[in-house]
């Protein structure tokens, strides 16, 4: 068995890890990151190939249970209304994300005080504001200053093209007097930091061949690894974190690229595996000191799993909008229904995220499933009615923490190393269902106002578990949370969690920018308090 020691060990090389390592590297200490997946090769992304739509649905499928790479682990989702979407590799989920990058809002951090539900965060928007700004610069974020739905902030790059479809839906929102704005997007609209600008390949959510999408392998890791003391090892899957009799993390046991069991010792351990992977490792780290899993004396590890309940409304227009072109998941958004209005019959709110129309295979297949693109002589006419003429509005609802929504360990299912796999138990709450129905209806109204001739609604979308949050939440009370306001484990003082699992509530926006701001903030706390933080 190999043995080694480093100053800081980081588990996972996704969004949060990349940001934290960037910040911590100025300490000049030895930092090792262990990542279970591979480096990505942009030449292998689907958009390099004519059959990109098939390749996307196979090797780059968002579900690890379908993708089944050697570097993935299975997830039991039988008792969940939402299926997990993730990616394991350098870049983590940012390899497949769309780069839709809205920040959480001030009210998102105080939902208990404002609405009497969930819990308040121990930090505020103001705490994270400088870290949001730093991360925007580090990542390369495009957008338009002046959005009245969020505290004013500068963006390093002008907004990505919204296209004709953006104008059409914008006019629709204007007709209704509703808010809308070009989305902050982690895609570079101009050449930036040695990277070439977006050329509208369209399928951002299967990897960006151009490197214009700010996945953290291109935005952070290449720079991180030029810094002294930073090392990243791929194909290294952590099985468990080791602790000593003083409740200090000693290091980890992991399997290397050859399947050899290794031990890596460290002064500080940071977990960055997000809302599913993080509780999985903690729950797999049982010892006589922590019989229910590491850092789990509160019993809160794996509890309060939050996704974003998701709806999809497709509007079809008569005129050609070329809506299938452009960054797939980003165009404009509306935050008209973001803040609580009790007259709506539910608490909290949602984003209307306007995304591009679907590529041809999806138009045909999705259309077939709902009877709109049939067999036979009607086929051609039906297909052409939709192609390039659709605007899609996604409804991203705030999910509130429920103790019954959990990540546990499956008693039977294991990964290729024999490590117990996660099991998801998740149901939408009554509040979420009401919110989702409201959102589907408002999206329909917006599309009608924009001139859509045919509208199709669908929700809850099962394949929408992109955002995994809440399963090791942050809080001041050690009986009710896993980490403190610095991301430091209440139970294990040299263990930090910096990913979406520390979210107290979910907001109603894609979480990556907030995850990264948190990672920068937590790593700043480690840096600034390194001499006292363990006392």
């Amino acid at each position, binding site marked *: 068995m190999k043995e080694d020691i480093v100053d800081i060990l980081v588990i996972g090389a996704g969004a949060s890890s990349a940001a934290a390592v960037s910040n911590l590297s100025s300490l000049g200490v030895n930092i090792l990151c262990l990542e279970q997946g591979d480096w990505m090769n942009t030449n292998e992304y689907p958009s390099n190939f004519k059959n990109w739509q098939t390749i996307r649905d196979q090797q780059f499928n968002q579900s690890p249970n379908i993708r089944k790479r050697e570097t993935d682990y299975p997830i039991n989702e039988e008792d969940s209304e939402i299926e997990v979407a993730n990616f394991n590799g350098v870049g983590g989920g940012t390899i497949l994300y769309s780069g839709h990058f809205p920040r959480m809002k001030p009210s998102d951090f105080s939902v208990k005080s404002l609405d009497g539900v969930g819990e308040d965060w121990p930090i505020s928007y103001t705490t994270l504001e400088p870290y949001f700004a730093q991360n925007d610069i580090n990542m390369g974020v495009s957008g338009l200053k002046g959005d009245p739905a969020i505290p004013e902030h500068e963006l390093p790059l002008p907004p990505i093209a*919204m296209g004709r479809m953006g104008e059409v839906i914008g006019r629709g929102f204007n007709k209704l007097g509703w808010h*809308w704005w070009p989305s902050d997007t982690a895609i570079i609209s101009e050449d930036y930091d040695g990277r070439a600008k*977006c050329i509208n390949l369209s399928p951002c959510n299967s990897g960006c061949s151009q490197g214009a999408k700010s996945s953290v392998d291109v935005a952070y890791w290449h720079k991180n690894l030029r810094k002294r003391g930073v090392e990243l090892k791929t194909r290294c899957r952590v099985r468990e974190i080791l602790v000593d009799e003083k409740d200090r993390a000693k290091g980890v046991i992991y399997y290397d690229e050859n399947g050899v069991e290794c031990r890596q010792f460290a002064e500080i351990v940071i977990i960055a595996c997000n809302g599913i992977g993080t509780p999985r490792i903690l729950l797999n780290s049982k010892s006589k000191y922590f019989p229910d899993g590491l850092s789990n004396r509160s019993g809160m590890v794996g509890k309060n799993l939050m996704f974003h309940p998701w709806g999809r409304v497709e509007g079809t227009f008569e005129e050609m909008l070329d809506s299938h072109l452009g960054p797939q998941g980003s165009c404009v958004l509306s935050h008209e229904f973001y803040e609580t209005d009790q007259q709506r019959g539910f608490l909290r709110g949602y984003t209307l995220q306007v995304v591009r129309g679907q590529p041809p295979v999806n138009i045909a297949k999705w259309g077939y499933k709902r009877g709109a693109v049939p067999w036979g002589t009607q086929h051609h006419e039906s297909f052409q009615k939709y192609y390039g003429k659709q605007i899609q509005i996604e409804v991203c609802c705030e999910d509130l923490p429920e103790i019954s929504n959990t990540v546990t360990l499956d008693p039977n299912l294991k990964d290729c190393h024999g490590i117990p796999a996660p099991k998801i138990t998740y149901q939408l709450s009554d509040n979420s269902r009401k919110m989702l129905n409201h959102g589907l209806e408002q999206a329909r109204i917006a599309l009608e106002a924009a001139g859509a001739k045919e509208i199709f609604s669908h929700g809850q979308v099962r394949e929408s578990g992109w955002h995994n949050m809440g399963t090791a939440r942050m809080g001041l009370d050690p009986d009710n949370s896993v980490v403190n306001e610095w991301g430091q484990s209440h139970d294990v003082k040299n263990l930090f969690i910096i990913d979406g699992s520390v979210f107290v509530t979910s907001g109603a926006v894609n979480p990556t920018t907030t995850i990264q701001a948190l990672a920068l903030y937590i790593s700043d706390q480690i840096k600034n308090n390194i001499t006292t933080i363990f006392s």
Partner: protein
Amino acid sequence: MDIKKFNEDQILDLNKILKIIIPPDKIKGLPGADEIKFIEFIEKFHPYFIEELSKELIAIQSSAERKYSRKIVDLNEAELFSFLSELKSANDSLLNDLTLLVYECYYQHQSVLEILKMTARAPFPEGHKVMKGDLKLLDPVIKKGRIYMEV
């Protein structure tokens, strides 16, 4: 994986079924689904489906013979359309799977995409042009002022 290929009769049957699923459009010059090298496509991308499809073709053939006392290749288009539609309505999941794969193959086929004036190439490295859009449309939103809640 042991891939069982189709025999000649099955290929004839399959082509007849493919042409029902997507017939040619002579006015636009679009090919039928029997002209898009579907078997090559599933051999390359969905090899697991070949054995299932082979069994399904046998089942469809037997069913057609029971109903019409004729083989699939001897049914006219109207008969075959009606027959397959019945099977589909009876929730023949493999027929639905076949349809989805046919659509997947058809809408990535070079000649189909070219005739429909869609991008018949890999998206990278050329990309696409998208108009920026008129940001003055945001004036009413700006005029309305702040809508987020201050805490």
